[in-house]
């Protein structure tokens, strides 16, 4: 596969998804941004009133990342803006979205900014009018397909993608799975791990493989009796210790982290492609600390913030910023073959079915 | 410490516990300055009655008055809380507070009433002297012996000059010798202070020694009220006769034809004629004399008396230290004779049994 073709298909796939977004009937209102000049703070631009933001003194962040990752993001922002005290709640995307929706239904508006790892709940939230429409001055650095449509609701702060990983201690290279279909080999029964149903990337994988391989793939997969976990750190922890032999949804970011720790794990990028999910950050309406929220969004979008997201060992997201440097490992997103949904309406509609099937596969 | 003592009235008191009735219509009065004792076996309701007077039990019906003022009245909906009745109480277990010194135990009641420090000091010392516990002020209460605790409890109860003192079997946890001594001390104290007291005990000797009046209770009702002598010498029914001292109960058929000199005659089933005194009581369907065991006399030779003399055979003689108890066959039954310094008779010996008719008391109609 030539590099060009890879590039083309990646870009095309991602472009397609952006265009598909436009086709969705979205009940969003486009607020005209106040005709203000953005202020420069540190090395990026913001429409937020930094003084007011610091006076607000707090930022509440709901994030899907694992504890270390979320703490890292907060630490990064907190180092740049020490006067703003950060607080966060982390839960896997599904649970996180639950919490947000039920809180708002009960009239509680405690959160400023949310980060989700799945487009489906983000679009749902946008449809419900949950996001505050804030067009950041940093948005210019992003292709339109990596921003919400209409833009201002959320943006793609990074992409996480997953391949196959296995424990080098337990699996000989010649036995190791090379492509996704190899996971159905009975030798991996009771020795494989995956993620729980509230994970965004797990949903993407399920959806994409149904398209690629048909519904039977997952029927066979469930016969493998995989164990499901909340975080990628856990998955790799178990691989490193030999508790599992193979991980069916091994996020590249975690692989890099564990390799640096010296764990005996190997990563396989299957030829058919790797499911990828965008990580979406957006400010929430009726945020208790609106200026701090805007400041955070701008920070996250900025080169500074993006560098943080890419380089922090607990995060290692691939950045979508047009002028972003390569990832920690020296690679770029376009070096990988990534799989993303194209028809978002269909994708969103199949969420319930995914939940039911996945839960049933895991015995609940 | 002289305050005019009040008198207590209890009318038709009923106290129920769940389904059971512990006190079933009890009435009595306590005169100012006197000691009234509630006497009876366990479960007769005497402690419950006392606690009802104290305000620690809530009755179901009746009236309790202290110094004319009702502290409990079912009909009028009055129930004065215990702490406001102006009474005082000595508990069976003494209830001395282990975390305080003797001084603080005794001073408690005065402190509650907001007395001045000097007054407290003086009165506590006076009270402790009264119970012969002077010098124990700073002793932690947990280090006292049973007898000492009892005295401290007494001092505590008296120190604030209450109208009435209630005693709930205060001596039953002491050994016999101490009990006997304390009995006398309590009585003297009560006389000296002139406080009205209500005393509960199951010990007959205590009741007889200390009381002005005794209320004998059984199963929640009163069997007899009277002075110690009355209760002892003129029991109303079989229960009182046998509970207050030991008695032989002699049942018989009324023989009016033999009645003379104001005496009543009964003929027993064994054919004996027994003369006794009716004391103004009516003989019922089963006329019975109560004859105290200590009033019967056994002698080897027939005594000179004309009435109430019978030959008997001694079945068994038991030496009991202060007295000897003889079981004698009398007609178709056995009688028990107790005599101090009675020469022991051999088993099977023949003797003469006699009793003064004045000591045969006709019991009331059941």
């Amino acid at each position, binding site marked *: 596969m030539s590099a060009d073709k890879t590039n083309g298909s990646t870009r095309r796939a991602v472009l397609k998804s952006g265009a598909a977004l436009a086709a969705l009937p979205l009940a969003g209102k486009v607020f005209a941004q106040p005709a203000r000049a953005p202020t420069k703070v540190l090395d990026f631009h913001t429409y937020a009133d930094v003084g007011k933001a610091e006076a607000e003194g707090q930022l509440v962040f709901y994030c899907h990342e694992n504890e270390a990752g979320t703490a890292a993001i907060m630490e990064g922002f907190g180092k740049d803006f020490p006067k703003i005290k950060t607080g966060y709640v982390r839960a896997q995307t599904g649970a996180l979205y639950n919490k947000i929706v039920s809180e708002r239904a009960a009239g509680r508006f405690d959160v400023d900014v949310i980060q989700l790892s799945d487009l489906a709940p983000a679009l749902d939230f946008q449809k419900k009018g949950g996001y505050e429409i804030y067009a950041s001055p940093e948005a210019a650095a992003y292709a339109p397909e990596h921003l919400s449509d209409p833009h201002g609701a959320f943006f793609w702060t990074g992409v996480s993608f997953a391949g196959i990983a296995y424990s080098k201690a337990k699996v000989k290279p010649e036995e190791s799975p090379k492509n996704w279909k190899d996971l159905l080999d009975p030798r991996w029964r009771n020795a494989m791990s995956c993620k729980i149903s*509230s994970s965004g990337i797990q949903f993407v994988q399920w959806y994409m493989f149904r398209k690629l391989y048909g519904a039977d793939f997952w029927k066979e997969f469930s016969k493998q009796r995989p164990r499901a976990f909340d975080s990628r750190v856990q998955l790799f922890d178990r691989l490193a210790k030999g508790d599992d032999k193979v991980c069916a949804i091994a996020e590249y970011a975690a692989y890099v982290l564990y390799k640096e720790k010296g764990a005996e794990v190997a990563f396989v990028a299957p030829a058919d492609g790797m499911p990828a999910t965008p990580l979406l950050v957006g400010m929430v309406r009726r945020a208790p600390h609106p200026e701090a929220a805007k400041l955070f969004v701008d920070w996250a979008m900025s080169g500074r913030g993006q560098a943080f997201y890419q380089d922090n060992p607990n995060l290692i997201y691939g950045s979508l910023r047009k002028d972003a440097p390569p990832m920690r490992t020296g690679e770029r997103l376009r070096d990988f073959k990534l799989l993303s949904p194209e028809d978002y309406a269909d994708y969103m509609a199949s969420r319930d079915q995914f939940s039911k099937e996945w839960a049933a596969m895991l015995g609940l | 410490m002289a305050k005019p003592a009040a008198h207590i009235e209890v009318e038709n008191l009923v106290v129920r516990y769940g389904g059971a009735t512990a006190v079933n219509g009890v009435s009595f009065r306590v005169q100012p300055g006197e000691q009234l004792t509630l006497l009876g076996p366990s479960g007769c309701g005497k402690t419950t009655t006392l606690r009802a007077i104290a305000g620690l039990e809530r009755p179901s019906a009746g009236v309790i008055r202290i110094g004319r003022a009702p502290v409990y009245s079912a009909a009028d909906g009055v129930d004065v809380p215990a702490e406001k009745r102006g009474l005082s109480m000595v508990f069976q277990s003494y209830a001395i507070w282990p975390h305080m010194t003797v001084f603080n135990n005794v001073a408690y009641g005065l402190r509650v009433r907001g007395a001045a420090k000097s007054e407290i000091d003086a009165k506590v010392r006076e009270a402790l002297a009264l119970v012969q516990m002077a010098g124990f002020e700073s002793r932690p209460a947990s280090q006292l012996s049973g007898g000492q605790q009892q005295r401290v409890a007494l001092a505590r109860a008296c120190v604030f000059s209450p109208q009435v003192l209630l005693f709930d079997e205060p001596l039953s946890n002491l050994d016999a010798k101490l009990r006997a001594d304390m009995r006398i001390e309590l009585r003297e104290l009560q006389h000296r202070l002139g406080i009205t007291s209500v005393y509960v005990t199951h010990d007959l000797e205590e009741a007889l020694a200390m009381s002005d009046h005794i209320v004998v209770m059984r199963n929640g009702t009163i069997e007899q009220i009277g002075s110690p002598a009355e209760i002892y010498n003129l029991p109303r029914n079989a229960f009182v006769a046998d509970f207050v001292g030991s008695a032989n109960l002699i049942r018989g058929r009324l023989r009016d034809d033999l009645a003379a000199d104001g005496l009543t005659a009964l003929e027993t089933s064994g054919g004996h004629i027994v003369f006794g005194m009716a004391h103004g009581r009516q003989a019922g369907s089963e006329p019975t004399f109560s004859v105290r065991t200590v009033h019967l006399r056994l002698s080897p030779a027939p005594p000179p008396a004309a009435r109430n003399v019978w030959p008997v055979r001694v079945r068994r003689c038991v030496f009991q230290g202060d007295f000897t108890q003889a079981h004698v066959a009398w007609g178709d039954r056995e009688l028990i004779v107790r005599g101090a310094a009675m020469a022991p008779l051999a088993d099977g010996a023949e003797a003469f049994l006699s009793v003064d008719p004045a000591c045969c008391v006709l019991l009331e109609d059941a």
Partner: protein
Amino acid sequence: MRHWRPDFSTQTLVGGAVALVAAALVLYPIYFLFQAALNIGDPEAKPPTDYGFDNFLNLGQYGEILLNTVSVSLAATVLALLFGFVTAWILSRTNVPGRHVLEQLMAVPYYVTPLLGAFAWSLLGAPESGFINQVWRALGGEDHLIDIATPWGIAWVMALFEGSVAFVMIGAVMKSMDPALEEASQIIGAGRLRTMLRITLPLVAPGVLGAAIFVFAEMLGSFSAALVLGLPNRFYVVTTAMYQLVSQYPPRIPLAAAMGVSLFAVMFAMLFVYRRIVTRRSYVTITGKAFRPRVMDVGALRFVLLAVCVLYLLLSVALPLLTLLYASVQKIAVAFPAAGNWTFDNFRTATTMNAVRSALANSLVLGLATATIGVVLMGLLAWIIYRARMPGRGVIEYIVMFPQAVPRLVFAFGMMWAWLIFPVPIYGTLWLLLIAYLTVFMPLGIRTIAGVMLQVDRTLEESAQMCGAPWAYRIGTVTMPLLAPGLLAAWLLLFIASVRELGASILLMGPYAKVITPAIVESWFASSAELTAAMALIQTLVVAVAMALFVALTRRAQLVRE
């Protein structure tokens, strides 16, 4: 009795107010639990649109979960009773050396929570990476020796912890048995064994049965061990299933609520039976004399028995703590670490992680508040129920013991719902956790204080009354000082219970209301085992220090007073 003049003394007012507060705390969430379980309409709609029993009918599909719950609880109960009975027997009936020290030590497993035990045993007994299995393989064994992530593994961990509860209960039963009963048997000529079988066992049987039922009810509602060991392996019990259902997206609230109500019903029934068995003898046991049972001389066997007791303590306390320590100082925890595997990074991270620091601080503050307010609240409640003559105190007793029949998680579920819509915004704050803790710990606090209260003879208070002291004065000068040791014990219990609380906290935490135990659990699921081990050890250490401080302070205060 006509026109009864009500007695509005301080006692009645305070008593009434406290009782109302307690009733509200308990019943308010239960109402919402039932409401959610009977909701067969749109789950999002508030209030529910349609009521029915469909959710309960659907439970049939999850029969396996119900079966799992019962089987694990049974296994754990049997094991726990075994541990408890054996140790109680050894320590109260035989002349094993060091009895008094051992008796004190038997309380320690209670403080090593099942969560810590689950972590440690997971590190020890995971089929691949468990230390024990690694040692086994190094010694030449094949595959693995034990697999802790199985129902028996879960039961084992639960039983190790609950064994000390069983010990206390059965020990109390043994102490309340009059040795004269056995002596009578032996004088007649029955040998020791026969006496034990025909006299002793039948006498202790009701008490042991009572303990069994109580322990079983507790096991039904337990959460931590099943969460750590069962969840990843798709082994669900009702509590973990509920947690899973609530955390899913979309959440299946009505189903979770139906499960919760079913569990509640079963536990309620069990505790009802337990109280029937126990109340027949309860006050005899608590206020009656404590006998000193006859101690058997077992000769040389006593060292074996000593070893048995020590073994239990090792397995339930020493081994888990050491394992956690061992794991926490490695980069990737293995049984035979290479030289480069040692690190203090885990502790460094754990102590600097803002989340940990704030969670720990929150937990300590919350623990202090819960214990202090709890002691007062529950002290008053205990007084009302067991001492006062207020009408309706039987009902109050029933209500405050309710939370015992409800697994914490289930209760928190109801609370989540109940307080979410409460006009005062306490949802997601420490206040909500405080309320939750006070509610779920009511049975624990009241039982502890009542036990001591009943030992304080009623006449001590009555004599104060007869000296003229009104209610508040009596309580302050007589009751409280006498209860002081009991209140202290209750304070400590409440403090520890609230710091290590998991089931309720995990559902009710908010962004600024993080507490340490759920944070540790989250860390287990979302980061490395080694970091989690470090966090758990830090928590244990902090709690131990806080306790030691408290005990030292109050001892000094007592000395000063005397």
